[in-house]
């Protein structure tokens, strides 16, 4: 097996991982701090992508579209929190799941009514559309390095924000014991709103980042949502650090599994059954990882303090 191919696949895994991190970061905060199951997190990712396309059509510039789509995602997240979700915090998880599932259906149909059912396209800006040869015959798009760069810087920024600012401290405290910080006189409602809006914006950012490489279509967030839940369960609910490590793990394991599982099986099996079993095993990989983590460390790899 050529080492260059392994290297390329590691890059692919890393890039997939940081995208998952952007989605999972918001989800883990909302789940951890508010104890709120927000299935609608995936549609915020979808909405980020649609907003990017919409603003691109208005401005004709990718950078302007990205710059406008982020605050728009934030505003939308805040609006969703105030109008719908705020009323669900006191309800049990089942009501939250039902209500946010309703939001998914509503918004998936909503974007279809506004933008149509056909997948949409966002063109890459000239500046980022180059590519570098990483191995023979394959050019690695510069834009994918940009995704990795943006993801890693957001992770760094989040680390500083959560560990070295006052709001970050409250967020950490909220993830550990919500009732206590509320009793200490912190305006928990405002904290929730901030956390929620911020999480929505991160999901929106992920949507903006993928719009040029994936098709922008109704329901695009649903699959990401499942993976994001896998990530936060592996990483430990409420933990940004856990989400980061778990997202990279999931990204790399999934990509390497898809790339090499069939070839690996071919060493011990004839080609035809290897082709059947390989992809099936590869797509199970991350769920096997999740099962293993749950069995050995039920609170996840890096549980928020006080939860374990």
């Amino acid at each position, binding site marked *: 097996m050529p080492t260059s191919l392994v290297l390329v696949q590691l890059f692919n895994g890393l890039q997939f991982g940081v995208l998952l991190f952007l989605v999972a970061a918001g989800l883990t905060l909302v789940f951890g701090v508010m104890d709120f199951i927000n299935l609608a997190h995936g549609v915020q990712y979808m909405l980020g992508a649609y907003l990017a396309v919409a603003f691109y059509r208005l401005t004709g510039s990718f950078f302007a579209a990205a710059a406008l789509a982020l605050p728009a995602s934030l505003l939308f997240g805040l609006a969703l929190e105030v109008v719908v979700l705020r009323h669900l915090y006191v309800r049990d998880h089942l009501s939250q799941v039902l209500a946010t599932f309703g939001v998914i259906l509503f918004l998936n149909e909503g974007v279809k009514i506004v933008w149509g059912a056909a997948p949409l396209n966002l063109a890459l800006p000239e500046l980022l559309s180059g590519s570098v040869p990483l191995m023979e015959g*394959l050019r690695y798009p510069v834009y994918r390095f940009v995704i990795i760069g943006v993801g890693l810087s957001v992770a760094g920024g989040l680390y500083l924000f959560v560990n070295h600012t006052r709001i970050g401290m409250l967020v950490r405290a909220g993830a550990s014991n919500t009732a206590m910080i509320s009793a200490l006189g912190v305006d928990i409602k405002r904290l929730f709103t901030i956390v929620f809006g911020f999480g929505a914006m991160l999901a929106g950012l992920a949507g903006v980042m993928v719009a040029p490489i994936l098709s922008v279509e109704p329901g695009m967030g649903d699959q990401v949502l499942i993976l994001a839940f896998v990530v936060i369960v592996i990483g430990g609910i409420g933990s940004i650090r856990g989400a980061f490590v778990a997202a990279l793990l999931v990204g790399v394991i999934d990509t390497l599994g898809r790339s090499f599982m069939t070839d690996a099986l071919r060493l011990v099996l004839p080609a035809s059954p290897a082709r059947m079993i390989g992809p099936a095993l590869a797509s199970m990989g991350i769920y096997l990882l999740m099962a293993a983590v749950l069995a050995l460390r039920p609170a996840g790899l890096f549980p928020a303090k006080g939860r374990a």
Partner: protein
Amino acid sequence: MTLSRALAGVGMLAASAIAAAGSVAAQDLKIGIMAVLSGPQAVLGGQLRDGFMLGVKHAGGKLGGLTTTISVQDDELKPDVAVGKAKQLIERDKVDFVVGPVFSNILLAISKPITEAQVFLISPNAGPSPLAGKGCSPYIFVTSYQNDQPPEVLGKYAQDKGFSKAFLLAPNYQAGKDMIGGFKKHFKGAIADEVYAPLGQLDFSAELAKIAAAKPDAVFVFMPGGMGVNLVKQFRQAGLESIPFLSVFTVDEATLPAQQDAAVGFFSGMTWAPNTDTPENKRFVADFEKEYGYVPGSYAMQAYDAAQLIDSAVKAVGGKLDNKDALRAAIKKADFKSPRGPFKFNNNGFPVQDFYLVKVAKRADGKFETQIVQKIFESYGDSHAKDCELK
């Protein structure tokens, strides 16, 4: 689902408006359309519905001269929902024809209740092999193709072109395996690798790296809908475009608005393209774009033909819908001019027609469409027809 109800309602309203405008006929023609109109694949169902509606419009709103009522149903791409709605069409609406659906799994689910009720089922897109061979039915007519045939076009082309090593890529489900099998039927060169990606996969960077490492003479791909949009964009971004891109249901008029320039020069196999040079097609494409504002795909063209087929058959029997045998004989004649050119039915109710290699191009007006490159098969019937007992 609310939207589908609303859509169906609009369909009924439009149809009843047509009905009210016409004079009181001895017998009305009732048609149920079954297509996926919600979810990510809704764009295909939309093409089907719009194509059929244009056919009705070209017949002056009255298929076969009868007052025509149309009920549009959303199958939601769920077989159980589709069966429920099919029964509703048969029992409540008492339709004479069901037209649809887009997907083969839905067709297999609804074919039994519909044919058992002795209602004609015109399939304008799906053509699964179980209904083409032993399981063929005197009540089913297909205006598209048998599912094996489009990939056979690419396999034959790759073989004729002398490609010695092909890389095959499809989603990991039954249709994916069928398409790969169809390609291999005529392609006798080496297979560099055969990769099945999970259905609904977002990112193909891992598969693209494998393609680059395998250095094939051509890739053959089946990636329907959004998966195809993603793959095509990423294939281009990875700089692999020097490898010929042969595909089925991956680059077509439903996905091209999203793929745009990334898909230009990529190949597919079909019976028709928007630039097919027949007078019927010029009229169809021009009127379709004027009416609906987008480029029609094969989904729309085949549904348009379903409307023409019903129109011709009902006319031939003088509007007498109760004599099923006479009606069937009239349908079987396929006495209409398809935009695609020559069209006739085989003994199994599937078409015998020409197949072409088509290629994506950008039109002068900036829109994208597939265009005919060369004819691959002439008067080509499917290989299952010999197993069908119908004459």
